[in-house]
């Protein structure tokens, strides 16, 4: 066998070189920071990081905390609903918009705009709308629907669902955009073939288009999942974790303890637990998805 020329060797390495900076940086930062955070979680850090080793004490505190348990449960409820509804709605909107709609540009912008607005202020508007005394409930009752009830925001058991509503409102436009881009990338001719095969429009989407958008689903799922897990602004702006700490999620828990209450060690422990939980769910999925997408 011959040895490839220098130019050929460069060409061979070029893809790796191009990828290298992104990967090296991501690794250094992401995994470096994860490790650092892991270390903090077994330290006595309070207001500022320090490196006095205290073993698993922070984890013990964490798992005795009722608030943390509530946060974990909320994350579960929120993620499932937010991802599920967000995907479904985003996909539905994308499909509807894909029907050669005249006002597509306008509608698309309407669905997307919630992304553009910072939750710093939108949260206020949502609080008003969801507040039974000011918003929808009030309005409907004024219009004569005396029995109309919509008071989830002030009900500790239901408040987390209002966070879902606002989250879906904010994100499904982007999901729509992702799906729309996917739809627009589908080869027209296979749609034609399906029409000939007698598939109805819903069947075409369900059996042909959506399955061939598997990578798009993967993107969407990753995006929504990470929004869900990191959702912080949303909760802070809408309920700030309230009533009480009924709508606390791990991100707000961690922020509050690490930064507001000077319990960095505890915050770090919560971040580690969160990551570990995510890893348990996401890593197998990532693995199988990337395997099966290889062509």
């Amino acid at each position, binding site marked *: 066998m011959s040895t490839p020329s220098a130019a050929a060797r460069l060409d061979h390495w070029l893809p790796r070189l191009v990828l290298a900076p992104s990967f090296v940086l991501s690794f250094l930062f992401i995994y470096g920071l994860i490790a650092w955070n892991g270390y903090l979680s077994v330290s006595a850090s309070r*207001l500022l990081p320090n490196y006095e080793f205290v073993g698993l004490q922070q984890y013990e505190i964490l798992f005795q905390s009722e*608030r943390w348990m509530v946060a974990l449960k909320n994350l579960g409820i929120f993620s499932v609903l937010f991802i599920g509804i967000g995907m479904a709605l985003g996909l539905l909107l994308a499909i509807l918009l894909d029907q050669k709609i005249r006002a597509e540009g306008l509608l698309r912008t309407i669905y997307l705009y919630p992304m553009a607005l910072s939750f710093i202020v939108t949260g*206020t508007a949502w609080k008003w709308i969801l507040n039974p005394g000011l918003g929808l409930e009030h309005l409907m009752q004024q219009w004569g629907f005396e029995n109309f009830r919509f008071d989830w925001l*002030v009900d*500790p058991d239901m*408040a987390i669902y209002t966070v879902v509503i606002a989250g879906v409102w904010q994100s499904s436009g982007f999901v729509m955009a992702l799906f729309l881009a996917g739809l627009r990338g589908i080869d027209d001719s296979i749609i034609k073939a399906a029409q000939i095969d007698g598939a109805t429009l819903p069947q075409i989407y369900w059996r042909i288009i959506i399955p061939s958008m598997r990578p798009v689903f993967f993107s969407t799922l990753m995006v929504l999942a990470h929004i869900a897990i990191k959702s912080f602004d949303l909760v802070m702006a809408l309920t700030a974790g309230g009533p009480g700490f009924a709508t606390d999620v791990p991100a707000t828990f961690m922020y509050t303890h690490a930064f507001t*209450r*000077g319990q960095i060690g505890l915050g770090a422990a919560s971040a580690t637990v969160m990551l570990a939980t995510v890893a348990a769910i996401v890593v197998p999925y990532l693995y199988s998805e990337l395997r099966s997408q290889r062509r």
Partner: protein
Amino acid sequence: GEVEVLHWWTSGGEAKAASALKATLQAKGHSWKDFAVAGGGGDSAMTVLKSRVVSGNAPAAAQIKGPSLQEWAAEGVLANIDDVAKAEKWDSVLPPVVANVMKYKGNYIAAPVNVHRVNWLWANPEVFKKAGAKVPTTWDEFFVSAEALKKAGIIPVAHGGQPWQDFTTFESVALGVGGTDFYKKALVQLDQATLKSATMDKVLETFRKVKGYTDKNAPGRDWNLATAMVIKGEAGMQLMGDWAKGEFIAAGKVPGKDFTCAAAPGTAKAFTFNVDSFAMFKLKNEANVKAQKDLAAAIMSTDFQEVFNLNKGSIPVRLNMDLAKFDDCAKLSSKDFVDTAKSASLVPSVAHGMAVPSAAAGAIQDAVSQFWNSDKMSVADAKAKIASAAMTK
């Protein structure tokens, strides 16, 4: 030199107040680098501060208050400004309770700006008149009036259901029901016996009873919307710190006539204070250190104290100041401040981070707020939770 100042006074009157300080400094030939971060009563600002300190780039001064000052000082990042304090005789113009908060191991590390009184009751006299009730001075009266207001179809108590507001209300109830000593023992010294005492039961029962007079839409409501309810006459009264006054005034209401400010029931002889202060960080550049000291001096100057507090709605932290320009509520507040300072019933506000370290305060707040929001939780449970929260380090 240059001073970079981290604060969360960003809008309206506060910003004007901060500008006054900036002007003073500039008059002394220093430049002012403004680092304003609003939000969550300084939560965001604290986050920024931490990362700035970690990156080795601390600002000259940062708005820090209460026991947090001690915590920061314990990290060894704060500067000693005793020379300024001595020159300006801070020890004599500040009430000792306040001065102690500003010191770490006997040295001044921060300059106080203002005093907020937290244990206020704001009321709409017109509504009270309509309902035939009078502004209460004790908790018993409070419930009588509340009942009357309720009968008149008015929401008796305007409340915003956010944990810090729940906690603010709790603090006023604790002070009113338990008295100053109880308050100090339970919420400042975090004495377990006191926290588990029968008085605590009473406090919690009263606290829960107050909730019965709030509307069901309270959760999540901002404090100023609650104030607006009082202004509009939808609600009769509100338990809130003196910043609420700003809302009344902004709505064109006149103190004493359109709205009443009174001490929270049973706390007329006491004063829960919330003092804003600037911690001074260790700096390397000499010129900047000079500017920093000038800043400390300027903060405590009578001129600034007056301008600032007129804008902010609070009262000067200096004793013995001329209050001619202040309104009646402020005058009342100031009088109580001076009186209680003498009678040792001037107590730090636990809800506003003046009394105990943030970790414990936060944990107690969680427990209080949970009790407030969950009608199922028994008083005994709540008491146990609060007591165990108080042990958080």
